[in-house]
């Protein structure tokens, strides 16, 4: 029976190629627009470290100006970064399983003599403590990170991104070889595998969709090399800072701090530690604002930092509205088409087709349109995402990492297509099944 319905549907669709392509196109466009916006939205709002969402936290403390909040638009939030001294204290608390303090540095990376011939390049370099790689589950292709000792008494060691390793060493195992950053030479201890977290939740300072860093070096180098942040540095207090040591001791915030707390007990202990630390500092005149010591999980962190902005959600709503318009259009066309051959349907009824069989025959036709529309829609989505990739290509590669048709967006496309088929086909098919057959016969 199903084969017969398909045969009839194909026959009917071939008979009016114009209307058929109009309906298919409407479904395809609606699906494509939805899939593209949903894919981008999903990529933007997704947590690249979702499997650790219940144990990795951003640490923030409100060390800001007693007279006004750090962000007027969100007066309830503490500033997003920490001072050097607070960051140092938190990571030294000994409570977290892993603790990271870090900032974004910059400078020229070049060959250290051997292998030469590669053009030096101004690059972003993450200056971080050793736990970075374990805390964020960063994959290594060769070697590994450095020991905590290399932070304390800074050792000239570095981890390269896979792109940097590709660039300077042709992708070969470069562990043990050396590379130059500004005017110092570092020994390579590790090379990362493919790692493109999007968004770059661990440092949202200059946009959430950025190139990952070219290289990682121990944070212990910051004081001695007087490394400054290539990200944001914010100060509220009129202080006379006349040396780098003075800057490190100031109330300026510029360090990101993340901790890994394996369970609720550790979290409670960490929170208690933060509260008592702030209380202690307050006694010496700092932290004059109300207590606002936070441990924020990644999901929440992305939300409060508005990585997915409201206008983005609006876009998704608009995309679905567009799909609805496309589907209503298709419903109208199908209805007109089905009712236009009501007399023929009446003949089928007279010859023994039941209401259910008439319904299924017409649903098959709607389903066929939706199926072809869905296939075309997915193709159009791939094209649309490709166009976005081209438009937003370099220098924002992190962003383009979102724009692939993946299993997730395919799943969404299939779900939308099935929903669309049902939405577009059910009503017209039901309508045509309801009319008494004798009425169609008389309409001849």
């Amino acid at each position, binding site marked *: 029976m199903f084969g017969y319905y398909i045969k009839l549907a194909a*026959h009917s669709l071939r*008979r009016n190629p114009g209307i058929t392509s109009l309906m298919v196109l409407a479904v395809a466009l609606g699906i494509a627009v939805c899939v593209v916006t949903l894919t981008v939205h999903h990529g933007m709002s997704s947590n690249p470290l979702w499997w650790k969402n219940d144990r990795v936290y951003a640490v923030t403390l409100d060390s800001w100006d007693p007279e006004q909040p750090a962000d007027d638009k969100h007066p309830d939030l503490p500033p997003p970064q920490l001072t050097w001294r607070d960051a140092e204290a938190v990571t030294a608390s000994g409570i977290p399983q892993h603790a990271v303090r870090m900032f974004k540095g910059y400078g020229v990376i070049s060959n250290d003599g051997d292998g030469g011939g590669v053009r030096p390049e101004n690059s972003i370099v993450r200056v971080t403590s050793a736990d970075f790689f374990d805390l964020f589950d960063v994959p290594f292709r060769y070697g590994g990170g450095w020991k905590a000792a290399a932070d304390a008494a800074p050792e000239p060691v570095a981890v390269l991104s896979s792109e940097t390793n590709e660039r300077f060493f042709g992708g070969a195992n470069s562990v043990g070889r050396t590379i130059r950053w500004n005017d110092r030479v570092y020994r390579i201890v590790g090379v990362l595998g493919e790692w493109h977290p999007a968004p770059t939740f661990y440092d949202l300072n200059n946009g959430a969709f950025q190139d990952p860093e070219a290289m990682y070096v121990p944070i212990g180098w910051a004081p001695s090399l007087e490394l400054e942040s290539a990200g944001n540095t914010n100060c509220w207090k009129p202080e006379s800072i006349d040396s780098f040591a003075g800057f490190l001791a100031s109330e300026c915030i510029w360090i990101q701090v993340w901790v890994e707390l394996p369970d609720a007990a550790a979290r409670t202990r960490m929170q208690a530690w933060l509260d008592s630390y702030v209380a202690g500092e307050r006694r010496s005149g700092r932290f004059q604002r109300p207590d606002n010591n936070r441990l924020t999980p990644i999901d929440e962190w992305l939300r409060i930092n508005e990585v997915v902005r409201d206008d983005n959600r609006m876009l998704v709503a608009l995309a679905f509205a567009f799909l609805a318009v496309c589907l209503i259009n298709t419903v109208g066309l199908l209805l007109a088409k089905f009712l236009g051959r009501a007399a023929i349907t009446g003949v089928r*009824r*007279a010859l023994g*087709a*039941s209401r259910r069989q008439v319904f299924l025959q017409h649903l098959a036709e709607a389903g066929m349109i939706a199926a072809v529309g869905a296939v075309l829609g997915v193709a159009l989505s791939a094209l649309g995402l490709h166009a976005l990739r081209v438009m937003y290509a370099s220098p924002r590669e992190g962003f383009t990492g979102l724009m692939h048709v993946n299993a997730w967006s395919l799943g969404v496309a299939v779900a939308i297509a099935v929903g669309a088929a049902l939405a577009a086909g059910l009503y017209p098919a039901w309508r045509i099944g309801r009319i008494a*057959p*004798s009425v169609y*016969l008389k309409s001849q």
Partner: protein
Amino acid sequence: MLAMRHISKVFRTDLIETHALRDFSLEVAEGEFVAVTGPSGSGKTTFLNVAGLLEGFDTGTYHLDGVDTNGLSDDARSRLRNEKIGFIFQSFNLIPDLDIFDNVDVPLRYRRMKAAERRERITSALDLVGLASRAHHLPSQLSGGQQQRVAIARAIAGDPKFLLADEPTGNLDSLMARQVMDLLEQINEMGTTIVLVTHDPELARRAQRNVQVIDGQVSDFRPYEPHAQPATFAAAAAG
């Protein structure tokens, strides 16, 4: 047997109620060829639609081949219609974008028959109406009389017990009408019960029994029977 007892059928629209059938009782025995006549609007088509399970009714009972049709589901009614009844319409009602073969195929499809059996039945039905050679023509490529013969082939392909025909010759000239009538008689002789609605007294006369419908009821008025009448007069004169 087709047995209607005290059937009434009312059409209600916003403004008026039409009693299309009222206290309508009629039995058609197996193998009969019954002609139904009556003025326009008297309820003949309504009777055929009820008989063919295309329409329900308000009160009364209707047994089709021993099955009480009251309260049957749409599925059951459709199956009954498909297996027991063949329809022939005044305007042929072939499906214009299917060829002759596929048109005759339609009722068989709803019976879920195997392809080989369907092909065999279609071919023999088309043979009977003399159009086997036109199997792959479209309806628009045939004359009116040929189209009605295809419709007859479609109606009998499933080998139904009853053939319900609503003015099947209304759109045909008299020669073609006679051919169609010949065909119906031939089918009746093969055992199919036929109920024929017609305005043409000449055709009605060829049926075994005439039924007249007036104002939604089977009329008691004796139908015109040319051979019986003189006998009646003679009897009256003799008396």
